[in-house]
């Protein structure tokens, strides 16, 4: 084996790297929009819930969601990019997202009250959890431990959200469907 002329790097030269970082940045943009829609629905849903325990839980979830959304800005910094333009675009797209949510609500005919929002919040949390999970995988795939370090605790929170929302939606869903009413 002849000695190589110089060490070889795979995918770590500036051009290859920046191409990959562009793609990560795009994903972060989608992540921001998905998380913002979750946060917005959590805030709206909390306002409609009468039952004290569920209201408290969803209010806490909305507060955490705001922090998680802010952390996405840190993800941008971790890859050396600026999130301000994406935040502006995400704000513009939020209106379109609300339309999509309305359509989803229509599909849940036959149910009454805040259960619909809670059910949608459950699905949006899964969507956001999956989007953060992908951000983690992208960090792992590019050797970016700073990305993974930011995302890992958020995923833990999202997992807790998932278990809580699954429990509450299944617990109170039958009353919503069968008796056309909510827990107050």
């Amino acid at each position: 084996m002849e000695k190589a002329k110089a060490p070889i790097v795979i995918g770590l030269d500036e051009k290859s790297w920046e191409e990959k970082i562009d793609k990560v940045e795009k994903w972060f943009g989608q992540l921001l929009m998905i998380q913002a829609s979750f946060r917005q629905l959590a805030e709206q849903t909390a306002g409609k819930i009468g039952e004290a325990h569920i209201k408290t839980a969803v209010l806490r979830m909305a507060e955490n969601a705001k922090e998680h959304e802010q952390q996405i800005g840190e993800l941008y910094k971790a890859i050396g990019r600026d999130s301000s333009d994406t935040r502006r675009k995400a704000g513009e797209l939020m209106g379109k997202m609300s339309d999509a949510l309305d359509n989803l609500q229509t599909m849940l005919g036959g149910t009454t009250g805040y259960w619909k929002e809670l059910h949608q919040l459950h699905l949006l949390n899964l969507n956001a959890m999956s989007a953060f999970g992908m951000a983690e995988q992208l960090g792992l795939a590019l050797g970016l431990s700073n990305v993974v370090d930011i995302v890992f605790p958020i995923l833990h929170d999202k997992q807790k959200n998932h278990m809580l929302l699954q429990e509450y939606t299944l617990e109170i869903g039958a009353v919503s469907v069968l008796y056309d009413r909510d827990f107050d």
Partner: protein
Amino acid sequence: MKIGTETTTEKLRNLPTTARPKIDASQVVVPDGYEVEVIVAGLSFPTGMAFADDGTLFINEGGSTWPTRPAMIPRILRLNPEGNLDVFAEESLGGPRGITYRDGYLYVSLKGGYLARVVRYELETGERTIIHGEIPSGGWHEPGGPLFSPHDGLMYFAHGSVSQNGVVLPQGFTVDMAKNPEVHDIPGEDVTLTGNNVFSRNPLMPYPYLTATGAYKPFGVPAKKGEVVKGELWCSTGVWRSKPDGSEPELIAWGIRNPYGMAFNEEGELYISDNDMEETGERAVAMDPDRIWHIRNAKKPHGSIQKPDWYGFPDIAATGLPVWDEKHLPERGKAAEPLIENPPEWAGPAVYLEKPHSCMTKMDFCKSDEFGHRGKLFISEWGTMAPFNSPREEDLSNGFRVMMIDVETGKGEPFLYNRKPASEVESEVGGIQRPVDCQFSPDGKSLYVLDFGVAQVGEGHMMAYAHTGVLWKVTKK
């Protein structure tokens, strides 16, 4: 397709990968008279390598490895003697593990799905043929080999257990059980079960009702006392040999938990590395050493093995003691009970015992005077997965080096390791991370060390980072 770009040692000290921002050969210690250099950086989950006779080096990037995600593209890279790097072939999800060259063909072991495979590539045409496709897999442990014996010219290969410690348990869901829920171990000869089932929570059930699982059964299926499980040629924990075209396969040994490293010495004796049982879960075993087995049956004529040798898994530790012996009682997890009644005769002892959780992987005998230490076995130690699989403080730094072992005396000494302790390596020191393979070049002058890259282990997680793998070269000055 050519890949990679040339760089400088200076640029290797300032990489964009924050998990491994610096690669610095000066941080790697080898004995006086040897020097270390970086050949390739930015590899993604490299798992094994092999030289062709002309000095071309083939490197496997494993795809879905340890842990199983993210899965990068599983492929075989080719580094020719002029220093050009290209992609020789791409493989399926799960990916290549072991590789060897012989007479114009590359032989590669592959994981992924319920069955592992050995495939053969014709180097000139790239034509791919499946040589063996029935090797039980889809769980915790890895294929070994393939490699060829200088004694009989046959191909030897192996595969580890699908269970972590003898019974398929919920921790398998963190590896492959979500994808392969029916997976279970298969014995290499008829065994009678004790009926000692292991109780655990079933993660697929909403309530913590304890589920019973028996040895050689899928998760949630109990064994009965006195039940006989038939041994099969294509078993778990097996070592086989066949002709190079795959014909006349023969099981020569079984009961080896994770036979990832295989090497022949110049006399044609076969040695296999194996990893210890883990001190965690519902069948936990403490203080089981990593080990190197001598496979005596490899010297016997092809087709003559009436009864394969048994090396102890899942009931005997490398100490020769039962895994339920007081010496092996766990500090964490539930103690093991016997699984096999009247087990076969144990084929140990091991020729070398290493600290638990050193994670010995691939290896090579030095067969040349050029490098020095002819006849010694050089073995990579991937490094501990504690605290994941051991609660013991002393297990936190085991491995992360290349050992030089005398298989005759059972003594070993570190040959290559980091200047700073392993715990500091995770920062920005720049030395070796997790050696997964070491092979001597055909001219006998250099030892190549394949470094898997950064894999961080915590109490509830394990994270491996792509683009952090490195190929190092050690040469006698």
